């Protein structure tokens, strides 16, 4: 074959794909490129799954919610505005999907069972060198007693480590407002703890 300008191999372009910026992939996805969106999902699927898991506290349901939410995100990708943070935009769709499933589940169970749902156990594995298991269980249960939006703010900030900039994007508020929203959520948590889990405010269990 005649040789002209050498081109990078397909394999190296495959590697390049993984180094593409989210913005490039988002632009391609907005043009209908499903493969570009697939790569975006690959990058963000862990966060999406964890967010859904925190809401639903069940791995199978979280998987369903995350998948459904990600498909919805693709359908809505053209509404994503360039220059904004992508992760909070994506997480909002996934979390809304998880919350919808959560509400549906709660509507579908009797009152007694609802209590059982609220008391869903901790994930099977807790590093007890970091926090005592019983204390972890009580904090976990107290968080479940918060209102949806308060709970989600706590999850995003402390469990998914979203910086304030992205949290502001998620909440649709100024960055300066994020601290007060977090403080308000923690204040509500304190009220719950005082009423239901006062031992958390005593000596370390």
């Amino acid at each position, binding site marked *: 074959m005649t040789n002209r300008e050498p081109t990078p191999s397909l394999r190296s372009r495959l590697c390049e*794909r993984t180094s593409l910026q989210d913005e490039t992939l988002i632009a391609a996805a907005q*043009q209908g490129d499903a493969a570009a969106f*697939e790569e975006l999902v690959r990058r963000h699927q862990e966060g999406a799954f964890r967010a859904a898991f925190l809401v639903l506290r069940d791995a199978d349901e979280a998987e369903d919610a995350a998948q459904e939410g*990600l498909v919805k995100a693709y359908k809505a990708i053209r509404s994503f505005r360039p220059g904004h943070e992508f992760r909070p935009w994506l997480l909002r769709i996934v979390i809304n999907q998880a919350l919808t499933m959560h509400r549906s589940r709660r509507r579908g169970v009797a009152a007694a069972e609802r209590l059982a749902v609220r008391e869903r156990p901790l994930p099977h594995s807790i590093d007890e060198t970091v926090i005592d298991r019983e204390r972890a269980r009580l904090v976990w249960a107290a968080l479940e007693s918060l209102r949806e939006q308060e709970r989600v703010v706590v999850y995003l900030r402390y469990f998914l480590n979203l910086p304030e900039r992205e949290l502001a994007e998620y909440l649709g508020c100024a960055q300066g407002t994020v601290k007060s929203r977090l403080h308000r959520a923690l204040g509500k948590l304190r009220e719950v703890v005082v009423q239901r889990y006062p031992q*958390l405010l005593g000596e370390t269990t």
Partner: protein
Amino acid sequence: MQQEIDRLERDITLLSRAIAFPEAPSLASRVRSRIEADRTRRAPSWQLALTAIAAAAVALAFIAGVASPARDAIADLFDRINIFETAEVPKDLTREISGTQVTLEEAEARLGLPLLLPGDAATTEPDRVLIQDFRSVKAAVLFFRHSDGTPYALFETNAPVGKGLPIAGKGVLSSSQAQPVRGLGDEAYWLTGLRIVQYYDPSGAVIRDSVRATEENTLLWSANGRVFRIEGNLTQEQAIGIARSLK
């Protein structure tokens, strides 16, 4: 009160560090499959049949432990071309290579690229030349005979060699019907067995006119930013010889 809030905040932080999340499932390929399925939902009946066949092939491969859905069984080899394995072909899906018969010069003009010709053909002139014009993608198809008389078709397209996005490399390598060929062009694959060939437009939609089935041995490769394909009942060595002789 603030002390209590601080203490709760510390507990939450500790819990977030201590908690072991279940392992996140691999959702990317499944989400992609859902998206593709939604796209084909409004497709004509034979396209729906193709989707079902592709899904069945994927499922079989999955059950057999050979591949995982979407990613491994469907091999997106190049940017605008998709070739995937299938167990059967819908009755009304053609195996014929369609196109408009043109001269070699016309094909080159319409493709907008210089055509490369094999030095290993029985004659330097092709038996016939077709131009396939799928609007956003064009292909010149040159029908030759190998020096042993075996007919084959050489496809030269103006499809870009990927933006690096849709290549499911792992699938290509793991597929029993798509084996990588070393030392030819930038990347090359030897394909055997029953397959569906289709082209995509820039939006990622399948170009209906382009879809056909083939069972002929195929050498697919990229070189110098272009995509080439040889289809015919040639051996792998013969096809590679032809590819190397192009000039």
